[in-house]
């Protein structure tokens, strides 16, 4: 069994040779006695959509949380564009160019949609306390730019009409999109999405897939966690499968989809109820 995993892993890794933006090296995270992430090696290629799938509790979100600095790893390093970013704080990671969304939507609920997206640009702006207090021209100008970009991002996710509404008052699906807009506002090189289609119905998921397919045409890389195979298979260039903190397989979607290990651990046998 163990051999089989390694064999499989080796075979698949060899089949990519593109520029790597994000790389983790034996990443490990423990919670008490539980090894949530166990020596994970991950490579994310530039300009592509990569997915992580795996059963609940496999440690996918934890990988994201470590990469984005929310948890500190117990072991291993990770590199972004060749630079070591281990142990940086979340806001530093964002400045490096990694933006993310959360599995359970985390918006600034009491603020307007526009303000939410403007906040996403915090790291890309720099007016300090005095220019702000005195509203110096430089600050005014910067604010204007921030707002312009924010409005553009809102438009991109189709929320222009809601810009003055409080984030908590818009529909759930819109909230997901708003969170993505906020992440995009920082103009990231790598966008990390944690179950973006969770809570969306099939129709909405499809819209999401189309949106991501458009998005990838910008100079951007996307890494996402998904349970919805329709989404994963529809857009991923590369899929990594985790189980119990370990990587059990990776490869092109169709390879992974037919991998018996993955089927056993994650997909389950397809039943004939759907036709």
């Amino acid at each position, binding site marked *: 069994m163990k051999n089989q995993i390694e064999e499989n892993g080796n075979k698949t890794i060899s089949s990519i040779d593109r520029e790597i933006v994000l790389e983790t090296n034996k990443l490990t995270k423990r919670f008490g006695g539980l090894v949530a992430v166990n020596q994970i090696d991950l490579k994310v290629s530039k300009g592509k959509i990569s997915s992580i799938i795996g059963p609940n509790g496999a440690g996918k*979100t934890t990988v994201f*949380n470590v990469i984005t600095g*929310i*948890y500190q790893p117990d072991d291993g390093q990770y590199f972004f564009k060749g630079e070591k970013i281990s142990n940086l704080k979340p806001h530093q990671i964002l400045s490096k160019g990694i933006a993310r969304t*959360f*599995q359970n939507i985390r918006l600034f609920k009491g603020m307007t949609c526009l303000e939410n997206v403007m906040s996403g640009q915090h790291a890309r702006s720099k007016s300090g306390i005095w220019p702000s207090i005195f509203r110096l021209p430089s600050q005014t100008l910067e604010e204007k730019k921030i707002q312009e970009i924010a409005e553009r991002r809102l438009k991109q996710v189709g929320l222009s009409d809601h810009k003055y509404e409080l984030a908590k008052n818009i529909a759930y699906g819109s909230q997901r999109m708003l969170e993505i807009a906020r992440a995009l506002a920082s103009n990231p090189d790598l966008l990390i999405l944690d179950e973006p289609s969770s809570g969306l119905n099939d129709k909405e998921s499809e819209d999401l897939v189309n949106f991501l397919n458009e998005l990838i045409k910008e100079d951007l890389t996307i890494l996402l966690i998904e349970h919805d195979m329709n989404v994963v298979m529809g857009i991923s260039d590369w899929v990594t499968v985790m189980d119990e903190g370990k990587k059990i397989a990776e490869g092109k979607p169709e390879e992974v989809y037919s991998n018996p290990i993955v089927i056993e651990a994650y997909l389950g046998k397809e039943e004939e109820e759907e036709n």
Partner: protein
Amino acid sequence: MSLVIEQLLNGLTIGSFYALIALGYSMVYGVMKLINFAHGDLFALGSYLGYTLLVMGTAYVTSILGIWGGMIAAMLVAAIGSGVMGLLVERIAYRPIYPTGRLPAVVSALGVSIFLQNAIMVVWGARPQAYTSDVIPSNILTIGGLRINILQIIILFLSFLLMGILYYIIQKTTFGAAIRACALDRETAALMGININLIIFFIFALGPALGGTAGVMVGVYYRRISFIMGWNYGLKAFTATILGGIGNIPGAMIGGLILGVLEMLGSTYISTPYKDVFVFLVLILVLIFRPRGILGEKVAEKV
């Protein structure tokens, strides 16, 4: 050596008062996420109720029930009185406000605290009152150079007993689990068939009742009570609550006892007037290293 033991005992005695009051803070906080600033004043109210029964009835109660019976009666009266007042406060001042968040309730709690404190002043007068000696047993024991007040032993025993009972209820029974569940998520608790109002009732009656009992103990032990005592004890008990880990019942007990001992240590080895400075510094140090208090559990906050 006997000096150290004596001092330690003193620290524990005052600490057990803090602990009893802190329990009320902690329980209410746990379930309602509300810092009940009025809790200290409910404690003071208990003290005055006991005083009214024992002293203003000019030892009438004591003559019937005996000194010990009188004391127990006073504690019961104080517990019931403070408990009922706690329920009233919850109904009138907190219940309409909870749904709108935690901070407005803090202001309301401060309002209740100011109200109660001044109400006590208006009813019983601004003069400090005294539990007079004809209603209090008092005996100094000297055991091998160690001077111990019997009352001290009794109070320590009683407060540990009360704390123990409470601990058992909260941690070991399903009812206790229901209380903890309410503390986590009231709506879901209701879906379990838990009567939330019953739990709130229980919390707001029991916390102040313990406080009221402590109020009588303080009166009996130190004799002097005053309308502002609630504020002082309240602040200390709140400190103890946080020190132990807020919302955590064993934490409140341990926090109270440790605070009492800390005060003793600070007063003895640092400086009496700087004692509270020392206590707060230790508290801050503890929080730097244990951001959720001594027993505060690491919340499994999943992102």
